[in-house]
C-alpha cells in the first residue's frame, strides 16, 4: 500500500458518498407498502412453499409478521424495501421478549440476528388446543 493507494481510497470513499446520496435523492426503491395478511401469506408461501399456516399475526406498522406452522414459528421482517424470513421453534417465539408493544425475536442467525415486530400483545391469548402446542 503506497500513497497513491490511499489517495485512490479517499477519492473512492467520496465517490461512494456521492452515489449513495444520488440513490437516496432518486427515490427509486421498490414500492413496498405495509404488510397485510394476504401479502404476508403470499410471502410465506413463496418462502416456505407448501407449509400450512395455522395462525398469523401482522405487525401494526406493517413491517413484519409472525406465523405459527405446527411446531415452528415463521418470522417475516422488513429489510429496506424487501423482506427476510426465518423459521424458528415455536417455543422460542413464544418466549421472545415483549416490551412497549414491540416483540423482539432472537432468530439465532448471524445474517438475521433479530426481528422486531410491533404487536398489541404477546404471546397471543387466542391460542387454543393444538395451536397452543
Amino acid at each position, binding site marked *: 500500500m503506497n500513497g497513491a493507494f490511499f489517495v*485512490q481510497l479517499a477519492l473512492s470513499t467520496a465517490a461512494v458518498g456521492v452515489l449513495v446520496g444520488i440513490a437516496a435523492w432518486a427515490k427509486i426503491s421498490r414500492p413496498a407498502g405495509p404488510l397485510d395478511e394476504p401479502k404476508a401469506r403470499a410471502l410465506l408461501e413463496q418462502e416456505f412453499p407448501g407449509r400450512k399456516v395455522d395462525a398469523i399475526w401482522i405487525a401494526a406498522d406493517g413491517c413484519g409478521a409472525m406465523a405459527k406452522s405446527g411446531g415452528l414459528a415463521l418470522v417475516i421482517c422488513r429489510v429496506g424495501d424487501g423482506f427476510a424470513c426465518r423459521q424458528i421453534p415455536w417455543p422460542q417465539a413464544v418466549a421472545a421478549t415483549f416490551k412497549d408493544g414491540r416483540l423482539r425475536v432472537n432468530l439465532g442467525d448471524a445474517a438475521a440476528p433479530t*426481528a422486531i415486530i410491533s404487536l398489541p400483545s404477546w404471546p397471543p391469548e387466542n391460542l387454543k388446543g393444538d395451536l397452543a402446542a
Partner: protein
Amino acid sequence: MITPAFDPVTLATPFFIVTVILEIVLARVRMADARYETNDTAVSLFMGLGSSVAGALTAGLVFAATIWVWQHRIFTIPMTAIWAWAAIFLLEDLTYYAFHRLSHERRVWWAAHVNHHSSQHYNLSTALRQTWTGGVAGTWALWLPLAFFGFPPAMIAIQKGISLVYQYWIHTEAIKKLPRWFEAVFNTPSHHRVHHARNAIYLDRNYAGILIVWDRLFGTFQPELDAEPCRYGLVHNLATFNLLRVAFHEWIGIAADIARAPRHVLGWVFGPPGWSPDGSRDTSASLKQRASVRVSGHARPTVLTPQTEEA
C-alpha cells in the same frame, strides 16, 4: 512481464461511477428499469471499497505465490504474441468458470462469495458488492496453473481485470435481451440475472465470466424465462445492513456449526451450502428437487428451456 503496465479495474473506476449515476438517473426519469434502495446501495458500494482494501492486504501473498510458480514454469509465453492473448482469454475464462462454480458449490468458498449475492436488488451497484475474504479463502490459487504453464504474471493480472470489468455491465435489469448470436456466446445481463436469482430453478446456474459457452458445455446453463421472473438475493435473505454481518455471516455460520457438531467438520466446510448431517437444511439440489415435484408432480429436467416450460 511481472507487474502489469496497467490495471483494467482502476482504469474502469470512473466508468463504474458514471454508469451507476446514469442508471439511477435514467430510472428516475423512467427511461430504464432499475431499482435502488439507499441502504442496499450503501452496503454494495462499501463492500466494494472494503474489498479493494482486503485485496491490497493479501496482494503481496498472491503476487509472491504467482511469481514463485512462474519461475518454475513449463514454457515461456511471450506477452507480445496475439495468440498468447487469445489463449489466456480462453484459459482465464475457463479458470473463472471453475472458480465461480466452486464458490457456489462448496460452503467454505461460498462463505467468501455469498456477499456478492446478498442484495435483493440487481443493479450496477450490485456488481461492486465484492468479497472481503477472497484472499483468505485462497481461490486465487486456481489461477496459479496459468503461471505454471508460462503466462507472465502481468498478463494474468490484466486478463483477470478485463474479465472483472466485463462482468460489471451485465449487472443490470435495464438491458433485457441482446441479439441471439451474442446471447449464445457471451455472458449477458439476462444470463447473469438468472445467476443472481433465488428462484429454485435458477440456483447454481450460469457461472460464466465472459463466455457463456462454458455453462452450455458443462450443463449449468439456464435461460431466463418470462414465466419465472427473477427474485434476487439469497435463499435465506439477510435481515441486516450491518457491513460486518454481510461480510462474515457465512464464516460465522460455519464456525457455529463446527462448534455444535465438530465431528462433521468436513461436511460443514466442504459440503454444499445448506448441507447438514441429518439433511434437515436445504441445499440448492434439494430446493430444485422439491420445486420440480411441486410444479409438475414429478421430477422435471434440471434445466428448463422456454420449450420445456411451455410443455
